């Protein structure tokens, strides 16, 4: 069972209450597709991903970015049992989407950079550490059902 300190709990709730989901979700996904272009392999049906401008303005990418961040919100609301909450998502990513789980870390890094850009100086090392821990738990839970 993951143990959260009061600071970590408060920090995660605070971050997710401050950020604009409609901005952060699409920004994180499009940044991932741009910085780590091999991740585009999972989005063959999304149309034009030819360059950074195309990816950033692609409506399917934006829509999916919102789906991803809504998925994260589930974890934010259930911090004490992310593993159970994510069981179906893990099976989905493993069985149906067949995503290499190392990609979860790539998206997590991009999300961190986008959130850091939004929050600025308030994204102190301690806040960053709490966010990093949260994402590590999310990634581990998403990996859990892979075999």
């Amino acid at each position, binding site marked *: 069972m993951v143990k959260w300190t009061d600071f970590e709990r408060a920090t995660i709730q605070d971050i997710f209450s401050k950020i604009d989901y409609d901005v952060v979700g699409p920004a994180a996904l499009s940044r991932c597709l741009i910085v780590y272009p091999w991740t585009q392999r999972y989005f063959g049906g999304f149309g034009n991903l030819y360059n950074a401008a195309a990816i950033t303005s692609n409506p399917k990418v934006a829509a999916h970015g919102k789906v991803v961040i809504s998925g994260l919100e589930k974890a934010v609301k259930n911090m004490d049992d992310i593993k159970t909450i994510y069981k179906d998502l893990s099976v989905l990513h493993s069985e149906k989407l067949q995503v290499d789980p190392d990609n979860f870390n790539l998206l997590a890094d991009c999300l961190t*950079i986008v959130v850091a850009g939004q929050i600025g100086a308030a994204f102190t090392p301690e806040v960053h550490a709490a966010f990093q821990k949260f994402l590590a738990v999310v990634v581990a839970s998403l990996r859990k059902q892979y075999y």
Partner: protein
Amino acid sequence: MSLTDKDKAAVKALWTKISKGADAIGADALARMLVVYPQTKTYFSHWPDLKAGSAPVTKHGKKIMAGVAQAVAKIDDLSSGLLDLSELHAFQLRVDPANFKTLGHCLQVVIATMYPNEFTPEANVALDKFLSNLALALSERYR
């Protein structure tokens, strides 16, 4: 994933914008790494204070960024340009090269907090590639 001319131009352009704040970037990135990835503290057991703003962290952050500046200057041939630094890290410091990626990530997070408008996705990919190549050049003399 070697650097294209476009990557090099993007890195140099970003560096022009952020180099004045290099000392602050270095200090924040190092302090941040020690907090977010506590296993990295093992390399600094000889420091009396590992906190952000402390003298050793501030001084060392500056040193790290001087290395990054050297790499930007030698961007056309990082392996030869960073040979001295590689020998230092390989034979004296013996830092596990996996940590280069960790510090690289922290550098990018700090740049994102301080220069959100400049650190576009295009600048991000160029810098990420550059830091990966820098790490590779630093590992050159390890074995």
